[in-house]
Each structure stands twice: as C-alpha cells, then as structure tokens.
C-alpha cells in the first residue's frame, strides 16, 4: 500500500527526530513506569509474598481491605489529617513569604535563597534525624521553651498527641518550592492595578483579597494540586521519625508507611500492591475534585466571563 507507506515516511520525516529525542523517556516510561504499574495491578489480585511465585486469590485482598483492615482505615485518617492541615498551612506560609520577598528590599536575593534552602534539603534522612533531635524531650525546642517560660515540655516527637504535628510542622517548614512559584505568579500581576486601587483608597487587605488572590488563583490552584499529591505520598519523614513503624502508638502511621510495612516487613506484596492502587485512586479523586471546584474560583486572564 504505497499511499499508506508514503504517509508513514512523511510522518517519520516530520516527527522522527523528535521521537528519537523522546526515546530515552519513552523507554523509561514503558519499561520502568507503565510495566511495573501493570504488574502491580496484577499482583493486587494475588498473595505474592516476595519469596514464592504469586497465586491468584481473586477478590480476597479487596474484601479484606474494605471490610477487615482496621489499620488501613487508621492510616488513611492519619494521612488525611496530614494533608488537610499540612497543605493549606504550607501554602499560606509560602504565599505570605512570597509576598514579603516580592518587595524590593535590600538583600532580597539572599533571603530568597535562605528561605528556599530547607526545601533543597527536601525529605532527606538527615533532616528527619535533625527533627527528632529538635523536638525530643531534651531537644532545642524544649530548651528554648524552658528558658522562655520555665515550663518543661514533653517529648513532642514521641507523644501520640503531638507526633503528627511535628511532621506537619516539618512539611510546612519546607515551603520553598511553592514559594518560588508564588513569587513568579506575583510578578505577573500588573503593578498598575495596585496603583489604581490605592488611589481609590483600597486598604492593603482589600487589595490582597480583590486583586492578588483572584489574579493569583491559577498559581494557587497549581500549587494546591501539586502539594496535595506530594503530601499524600509523604514517606521518608514518617519513616525516620517514627522508627519506621508509625510510632508512637500508630499516631504517625501514614498510608505510605503502612503500605511499605505490609510489603516489606509482613511480606504481603500482593496486598501492598492493592494498597498502592487504592492510593492512586484517592489521589486521582482529590485531583479531580480540585479541578471540578476550580471553575468556581480559578480565573484565567485569557478567559472571558
């Protein structure tokens, strides 16, 4: 079929080089992402224990997850708390600091770098270890509290009432990447809008509500989606700080941590695969929800409304 062949040749001439450039990524995507993902979908329906070949168990895993798994429910609630409190707080801090750094003060470059630094360190083991020290019974936080108030605080990191909050604080502290994105967004807002507003006598707070927030909405939306996904997947901090077990008393048993324990400590790789797929569905649902609500509060400048 010469016509078809001709089309193929034309397609290759036009796009071939592009696909060649894409090739490494494509290999990675199919080999390292899609392949394992599909394998894990299959394993979700088996009793794979890492040591023996998997056996098909049908809906057993799903039934257990839905009706019997108390820990699954508990770990979900821990993760939800982390997301629901951690993400908005992180975004608020990031936005606040971005607005401060948006002004041209002396040495602003230095401050930007300094505030970004914690995020560069990221979800590293070293930071988590440091956090343990900071919030321990004899840690820096308690020493300062004692000096300031004379009150001897508990070990925040190992008390079930506070441990999760130290993790949320760690999450908030690493506000650098959303901050940078907010900064870029703030630069996009035309200065004359603020000038006009202040001539009309609008207060700073009113300017923030009526100009900054609406015009920044797409960026806020972007950050919200990204940070939510990241928070759902949080693992390293909880793993290090909780002794790898969600201690104390399961209070920091994140969903991702529970999944890891099921897979590698309890040798239930099949069940853990199902847990991974459940997490994917939950993140998907949250993202879809964010997109659905976005039409009511996100305004794009090229939209006519």
């Amino acid at each position, binding site marked *: 079929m010469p016509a078809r062949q001709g089309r193929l040749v034309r397609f290759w001439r036009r796009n071939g080089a592009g696909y060649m450039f894409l090739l490494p990524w494509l290999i990675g995507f199919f080999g390292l992402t899609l392949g394992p993902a599909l394998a894990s979908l299959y394993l979700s329906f088996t009793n794979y224990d890492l*040591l023996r070949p998997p056996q098909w168990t049908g809906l057993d895993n799903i039934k257990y997850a839905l009706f019997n798994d108390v820990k699954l429910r508990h770990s979900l609630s821990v993760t939800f708390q982390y997301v629901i409190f951690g993400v908005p707080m992180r975004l608020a801090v990031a936005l606040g600091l971005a607005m401060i750094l948006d002004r041209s003060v002396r040495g602003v470059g230095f401050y930007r770098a300094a505030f970004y630094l914690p995020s560069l360190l990221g979800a590293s083991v070293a930071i988590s270890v440091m956090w343990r020290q900071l919030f321990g019974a004899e840690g820096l936080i308690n020493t300062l509290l004692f000096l300031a108030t004379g009150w001897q605080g508990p070990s925040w990191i190992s*008390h079930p009432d506070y441990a999760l909050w130290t993790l949320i604080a760690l999450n908030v502290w690493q506000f650098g990447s959303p901050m940078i994105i907010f900064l870029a967004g703030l630069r996009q807002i035309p200065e004359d809008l603020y000038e006009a507003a202040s001539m009309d006598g609008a207060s700073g707070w009113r300017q923030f509500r009526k100009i900054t927030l609406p015009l920044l909405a797409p960026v806020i939306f972007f950050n919200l989606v990204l940070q939510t996904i990241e928070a759902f997947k949080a693992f390293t901090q909880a793993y290090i700080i909780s*002794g790898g077990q969600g201690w104390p008393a399961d209070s920091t048993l994140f969903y991702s941590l529970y999944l890891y324990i099921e897979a*590698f*400590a*309890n040798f239930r790789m099949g069940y853990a695969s199902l847990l991974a797929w459940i997490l994917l569905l939950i993140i998907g649902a949250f993202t879809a929800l964010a997109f659905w609500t976005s039409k009511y509060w996100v305004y794009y400048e090229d939209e006519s409304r």
Partner: protein
Amino acid sequence: MTNKMNRRTFGGLLLGGAAASTLASVGAYAADGSVRLIWWGNPERDKRTNAVVDMFQKATGAEVLPETYAWGDYWQKLATQAAGKNLPDVIQMDYRYIFEWARRGQLAALDEFVGNGIDLSDYDPNQLASGKVDGKLYGISLGANSMSHVYNKTVLDKIGVTLPDQTTWTTDDFVQIGKDLKGKLPEGMYFTENMGQYEPRLQTWMRSKGKDLYTAEGKLAFDEADLAEFFTYWKMVQDEGLSPPADLQAQDSGKMEESMMATGHGLFNFLHSNQLVAMQKLVPDEIDIVMIPNNGPHAGQYLKPSMFFSMAEGSQDKATAAAFINYFVTSNEANNVLLIERGVTGDASVRAEILPKLNKTEQKIINYLNVVSTHVSPLPPPPPQNAGEIDRALRPAWDEVAFGRIGPEEQAKAFYANAKSILERT
C-alpha cells in the same frame, strides 16, 4: 541505612595472591571465587566482621563483598533481594526467620558441606541442632546467648545496694528494690526502662508461668488474663515512677544508643546477653548482667542461638561460601577478632582458644551464661509465620497503655484478639 561495599577488594586480591603462596594454614580454606555476605549489626560488629573478611581474602585470594544493615532495615532489604533473585551467598539468619526462609526455598541445605568444606567436628551438637529445619541443616549457629537484664553497676555500688540471688529473685523483688532506690538515683535516671513493649520480655513472663508465646502448632500459648497481668505489672512500674514517663520512654526507637540506659535515663535495661559488649561501649559507667526476675515457678529463660550463617539456595559459588562460613566459624584467627560479640561459639576448640583472651565485659557474659545454663527451660518451638507482625504490634499496643489511652485489661483483650487474627491471616 548503611551499605558498606568493600573498597579494599582490589588490594585484597593482590595481597591474597601473595599470601596464598606463603601461609601454611591456607590449605584448609583454599577458594578463589567471589561471594557476597550480608549481616545485621552494630558498629562494633561491623568492624570485627570487616576485619575477618579482609583476613579471609588475604588468606585465600577469594573475594567477599560485605553488606550490613541495622536490624530494622535488614529483613526488608533481604526480602527485596530475594524477590529480585539477588540474595547474597552468605546470609546472617535469625531463629525467628530461619524456618520461614528455609521452607520457602530460599536457603541451601548445608548437610553436603559438613565434613566436606565445613568442619564441625568440634561443634556442640545441641547448638547445631537449632539450625535444623525438617531434619536438614540450614544454618550454623554463630553463638549462644540468652535474654538478660543489664544494670549500671557503678551507680548501684555507689548507693551501696546489692542485688538478691539472680537465680531466684522475683518481679516483686524487682519492684521493691526500685522503690527503695527512689530519690537515691542520679538526676534524670529511673530505676528501669519499661519492658512492657518487648516481646522477648513477654515470652519470659509467660514461660515463667509454665506457658509460652506460641505452641508447636503455631497457636497462642497463653491467654488473655496472662497478658492483662503483664500489662498491669508494667503499667504499675510506670505509675510508681520506676520507669520513665511514656513520652520519654517512647523516644527509644529500638536503636541501642537511644535506649534508656545509654541515654542515662535507666538503671536497668533489657538486652540479649551478647549485646552487653556493644552496650558497654555506649555507657561510661560499668554495667553488669543478671537474670530476668521470675514471676512464676518455672524457668522463664532459655539458651538460644544468637544468629546463624546460612547459604542462599541460589548461590552461584557454594564452595567459596562454604569456605567462608568454615573460616568464620572454625578458625582461631577469625575468632580471635570476633570473640563473643555474636554470642558464645559452640566450637569447643575455638572456645578454648578465645576464652583466655576475653576482656572483663566479655568474661561477664561467659559467667552469666554459665549461671543461666543451669536455670533454663528448653528452646521453644520456632515461632509461626506472622509472628514478626505480632512482635511489631506489641510496641504500639503497649504505647497506648503507657499513654493512658486504654486500660491494661482492655488492651490485653484487644491485643489478644488482634494476635489471633494475625495468625489466621496468610
């Protein structure tokens, strides 16, 4: 996580070639393959093991690539490697796991190497038997140990208290001593760490009452009331102020350097006897070791194999792996470095060689095991599948009691039901 790959391999090979032609003792260990070795441990064990690896390489020209992890990461790492069909040739094994790993076809039976690469003629047959699964030898015990209490002797001597006879003291004595010591201990130090979180302590509790954790059939060998008693006792110890408040105790995430004893918050600590060596390195004061107080008429403790060396079924070079195990277990030069850090060896001639060379701390372990060995009950049957999960469930369950979120009896009921359902799960 630590992952120490050997950087001395190249030099070792060079030196090995030279040494092989000169050393007389080489013949017995001659091998020139390459094997991987994995163990869990602590910095002290890593140091000694790496030294023996070097010596073996120099003596034989074989290559050994060592990897080490902390206990908590070890089993996860091993499972991952097994799934990738990439297990190291020589694997340090624990009594808790050896049955599961052997029955799942991951370990090689060592019987064909006994007397044919691995010389066990001087090895105590009783200790050897603990590495048998379904009649075949899957692991060679690297030493015997037992559970124990260790305490800060310097502090206790300064106060002028002597402990009662360790073979007959009871949990009531233990609490009474703690109460008597109140107000006399250094600032910030409590009488004992809280042991309500430890599965081995729970086991001695049950055995002292003539029960155990698990039956040979893999069912629970105690009942709810026994567990309630255990939780109630340790909650009382905490409420009396003999052990640290819950949040301080919970800072211990299972690393020895975070233990109440190492951080100066505990006079008494729970340990396996071979760990005394590592603990003494962390505590400036002198520490000593005694038996666990009884809560019943039966002997709660037993002598257990501290750990094994096993061989991967998938090993490509079983001869070299066997040669390494043989060198590690039976050679005097290796054991002069290893001493009893992994427990007291079952090889009589090696024991005769190293006993005079032990330092004061190590001598204490020997003396301790001599006392213990006349007051023990037999090795319990191997724990059932999922016993590890029950072990891990105990700490959070205890934490809830310690933080006052649930009463000891209520928690005993909940934990018992949970343990039963874990055992029933596949």
